[in-house]
Structures are given as structure tokens and as C-alpha cells.
């Protein structure tokens, strides 16, 4: 059994038929991690005891002939901003370096209920703020395709671990592109669900009106299976919704793709554009209709996002006070704990958000950005009356060099140019591999109507093989 070639279906079948045991498979991953993760530094923590206990439980079920879950024996890595009871959860921050979760996130409970195995927690930009995973307080994760380059971010650890088969699949969180952009840089599949499709309970909050949890996988089919497990209403997250998803296969022949011209303009690498256009032609060849469309407010999405998300973050991060949990400094004051515990990017965003929300600036910045958000959402609503999907590049470039963008925050922000509008409009989108440029993966983004995750995955499947 080659770890690189497994799928969720194959794992479940193999375990059921006793071709291999859950314990064997889990041990195999830990061996591979021990040998190979030194080179890419994707994990912050391994939860070996938890994993092996869970694996043993699954093997016992098999031996007794009991029913097994949809994810039986599937080894997963979890971005370290989702709580797993009894395990450390750092959010990549010094302020939470020794924090141990006192409960599990709803998505973790759902995975375990379906007999998945949690291998460990993966590296991320501190509090999920960044596009390269270089903002982690603990380590720099490398791109498995080129170790001098970043894996993208902020779910860079999860994407790198998945690409390097140091887990079968993983979970990420996406506030402005943090699942899709690293999936694109690492050549894997990353799905950001519709806002409200997956419970955020137990996810360390960043921008609460934008955050969503989703899967990072090696195949489109695996993303579908994981999403199916994760989705649904949770009484502990009032924004989560019960949706009757249309799961039957879409007849792609009768569908229409919109290609928004604003995503193929200045700021997007020519080679990336060419690659995506090549793939769009492939869709056309397979009978999908293609049409050029326009989303006129696209250029305002990034500036609006850099008001809205830091504003929400500045409020969400007010809870880190060094009293209930987290760092304790000698001086021990609120200000001292925060000054020492937060890294530069987090401070930058707290300052920016506090400024935009402060008296005298609220209307000019925060309120204005909220109105622009309405216009961006309306752009999508209008266009989705004409087409079923939008296809764009996931990121303007392929993976950049480590250190290349850390000095200039704005240049880092531009890495999310194509993914941010989707979060502002609360839509589902997937990034799938679309070939390589100079041996670096390129990602293609498919954006869909609200709660049409299965439909975008069907379209993705059309050209995925």
C-alpha cells in the first residue's frame, strides 16, 4: 500500500476487508512524518496517543463485525486553530503557546464520530493572518514542491502535509483564501464552503463574518466525502445552517461558466492566466458553455477586506488578556501580555482594525467598507442569474520564495486578490490543481452559488483527472 495513492474509499475498503489495519496505517503515517517532516516542518504537534487509541477502536469494531464510519481509518491533520480536547492549540501564537483545549470543535467531533484519525496539529500564520505561513511564531513551513518556497497560507501546514502525504487529508480555515491559496501553491484540492455550511464552534475566531472551515485533500472525491461529514447545523454556532444539499450529479452539459475579466487583468501573472485559459478551453471541449462576464467592483474587494477583517479581528482578539488562559508575563498586565504575546502581523491588524472602528473614523472606513461589501455581493448575485459557475485563477502567482514578501505587508496581501471577494460574498469555492509552471503547481478556482458545493465539485471532477 502506497500512502500517496490512497483515497478515502480505498482506505475504508482496505480496512474493512482487513487488507491492512487502522493501526498499521496510522503507524505508517507517523513513521513517514518522523522521517520526512524535518524537511518541510508542517506539523506543530503530533497527537500520537489519541490517534493510536482511535485506530485501535476502529480495528476492534472491524473484528467484532460492527458498522464502521464513513471516514474509518482516514488519517487527518488539523490546522492548529481548531480545538481538540486535551491537546494543545496555539493558533501559531506565543500568546497561546501552552494553551490546552478544554473541549473539541464541532467539526472534530464529527470527524471522530465517523472514525477518522487525528494525527496532529499543523502550522499556520499566527491567528490565520497571512498568506505564506511565515507569520507562525514557531516555525517556517516549506513547500513540498520546492523547499525554498512558501506553502501559501494561512493553512500552509495542512496543505503541505497533504501534498507530501504526511496525512491523508487535512482541515484548514479560510477567511480570505487561507484554504484555497495554499492548496493552489501545494498542488492539492482545497474547498471553502458557503458561509454557514460548516459549524465554526471551536475554531479560534479571526473574522467571524468571513471564517469557514473546509477540507484540503488530494482528490475532488475526497473533498466531497469530507464536506459531507462536516456540513450541517450546529446549535452551538447560530450562523450554521441546515441545508438540503442537491447531491445528485449535475448534468454539466447544460451548465454555463462565467469567466470574469477582472480576474485576468493587471496583477495576475501571464503564465498563470495562460494556464487557466487553457483549462477553460478544456471545459468547453467537454460541452460546458463559456461566457466572459464582468464583476465591476472586484478591485474594491481587497481594500474593503482590509478594513472589515482587521476590524473583526481587533474585536475577536480582545479576549487574549492573560487572565483566563495564555501567556503570563512577569509584569502580568493586559497590555504587557498582548505586547509580548502577539507577533508583528497580528499587531498590525489589531491596530488597523482598532483605527477603522475608532470614533471619528468608523463611518469613513468600517461603514464604507460594509457598503462596498454589499456592492461586491450584488455583483455576484447578478452574474449568477446568467451563469452557474465562475472560473478564475486561485492566486495571481505560483508559490513565492521564503522571505520574499515579509518586508512589505501589502505585497503579501495581494496574494489573496482572487480569493477574498468570495469570502466577502459568503460563497463556496474550490481550488483544484491546473498543471504546473516551472514545476510549481497552479490552482484553478471554481466559485459557485450559495450551498452548491456538490455542483462545483462535479464541475471540478470534469477536468481533475
Amino acid at each position, binding site marked *: 500500500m502506497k500512502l500517496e495513492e490512497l483515497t478515502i474509499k480505498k482506505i475504508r475498503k482496505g480496512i474493512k476487508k482487513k487488507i491492512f489495519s487502522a493501526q498499521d496505517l496510522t503507524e505508517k503515517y507517523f513513521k513517514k512524518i518522523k522521517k520526512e517532516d524535518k524537511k518541510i516542518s508542517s506539523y506543530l504537534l503530533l497527537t500520537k496517543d489519541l490517534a493510536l487509541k482511535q485506530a485501535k477502536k476502529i480495528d476492534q469494531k472491524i473484528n467484532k463485525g460492527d458498522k464502521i464510519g464513513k471516514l474509518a481509518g482516514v488519517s487527518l491533520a488539523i490546522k492548529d486553530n481548531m480545538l481538540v480536547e*486535551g491537546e494543545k492549540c496555539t493558533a501559531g501564537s506565543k500568546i497561546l503557546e501552552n*494553551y*490546552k483545549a*478544554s*473541549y473539541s470543535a464541532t467539526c472534530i467531533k464529527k470527524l471522530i464520530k465517523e472514525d477518522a484519525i487525528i494525527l496532529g496539529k499543523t502550522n499556520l500564520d499566527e491567528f490565520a493572518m497571512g498568506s505564506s505561513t511565515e507569520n507562525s511564531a514557531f516555525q517556517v513551513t516549506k513547500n513540498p514542491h520546492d523547499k525554498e518556497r512558501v506553502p501559501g497560507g494561512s493553512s500552509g501546514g495542512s496543505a503541505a502535509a497533504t501534498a507530501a502525504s504526511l496525512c491523508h487529508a487535512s482541515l484548514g480555515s479560510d477567511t480570505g483564501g487561507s484554504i484555497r491559496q495554499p492548496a493552489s501553491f501545494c498542488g492539492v484540492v482545497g474547498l471553502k464552503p458557503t*458561509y*454557514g455550511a460548516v459549524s465554526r464552534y471551536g475554531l479560534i475566531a479571526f473574522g467571524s*463574518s468571513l471564517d469557514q472551515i473546509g477540507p484540503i485533500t488530494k482528490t475532488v472525491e475526497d473533498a466531497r466525502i469530507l464536506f459531507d461529514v462536516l456540513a450541517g447545523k450546529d*446549535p452551538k454556532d*447560530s*450562523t450554521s*445552517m441546515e441545508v438540503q444539499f442537491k447531491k445528485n450529479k449535475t448534468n454539466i452539459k447544460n451548465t454555463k461558466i462565467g469567466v470574469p475579466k477582472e480576474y485576468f487583468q493587471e496583477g495576475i501573472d501571464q503564465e498563470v492566466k495562460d494556464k487557466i485559459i487553457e483549462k477553460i478551453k478544456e471545459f468547453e471541449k467537454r460541452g460546458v458553455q463559456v461566457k466572459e462576464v464582468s464583476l465591476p467592483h472586484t*478591485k*474594491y474587494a481587497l*481594500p*474593503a477586506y*482590509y*478594513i472589515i477583517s482587521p476590524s473583526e479581528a*481587533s474585536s475577536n482578539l*480582545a479576549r487574549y488578556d*492573560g*487572565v*483566563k*488562559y*495564555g*501567556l*503570563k508575563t512577569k509584569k*502580568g*498586565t*493586559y*497590555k*504587557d501580555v*498582548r*505586547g*509580548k504575546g*502577539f507577533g*508583528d502581523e497580528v*499587531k*498590525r491588524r*489589531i*491596530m*488597523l482594525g*482598532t*483605527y477603522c472602528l*475608532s470614533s471619528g473614523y468608523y463611518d469613513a*472606513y468600517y*461603514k*464604507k*467598507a*460594509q*457598503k*462596498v*461589501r*454589499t*456592492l461586491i*455581493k450584488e455583483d455576484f448575485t447578478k452574474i449568477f442569474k446568467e451563469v452557474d459557475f465562475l472560473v478564475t485563477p486561485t492566486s495571481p502567482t505560483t508559490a513565492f520564495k521564503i522571505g520574499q514578501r515579509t518586508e512589505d*505587508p*501589502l505585497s503579501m496581501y495581494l496574494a489573496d486578490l482572487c480569493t477574498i471577494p468570495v469570502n466577502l*460574498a*459568503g460563497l463556496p469555492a474550490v481550488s483544484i490543481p491546473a498543471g504546473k509552471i516551472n514545476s510549481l503547481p497552479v490552482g484553478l478556482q471554481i466559485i459557485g452559488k450559495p450551498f452548491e458545493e456538490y455542483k462545483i465539485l462535479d464541475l471540478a471532477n470534469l477536468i481533475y483527472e
Partner: protein
Amino acid sequence: MVDKKQIKHIAELAKLNLRAHKEDKLLEEVASILDYIKVLEEVDVKGIEAMGHIQEEENILKKDKIKETKDEAKKNILDSAPEKKSNYFKVDTILNKEE
């Protein structure tokens, strides 16, 4: 445009201790981001509603029923605190504190 005095004021509001050299760097960076954001000025938003949230639902309520918390959960929560005393978080004196 944002100046050093404002940066100090904002850091105070955000409860962040900043070292002097960090203040200068943050001033420069925040100013450059605000300059980038300025492009929003050209958008006409007359008559457009502000969107605080993508969902329109409001006031999702639950029954006001007390649920027992397991002792173990209580212990876990308190164990995370940097300082505790019996079943409480320990905090520094805030009121009547001599500066």
C-alpha cells in the same frame, strides 16, 4: 493622515504595549495600508445598505435552560489559567490600586 500621536492612542485603545522602534514601523505600515484603502473613496455608495453580515437571519434564540457543566470541564478550564485560587481565576488588583 495618521500620525505618531494617533498610533500611541490606538495602541492604548487596543491595549498593546509597543516598543518605541515598533511604533515608528507600525506608523509607516499602517499609513501605507490606509493609503491603499483610500481607493474606496471613489466608490459611490449613496443609497447602498451597509452589510454587517452575509446572512439576514436575526436573533436565533435558545431556551434559557441551565446545563450542568461537568466537573472535569471546569477543572480543564481553570487549569488553563496562568493563576487560580480554588475555583476562581486570580487577577491582579485593579480597583484602589496605587500606581
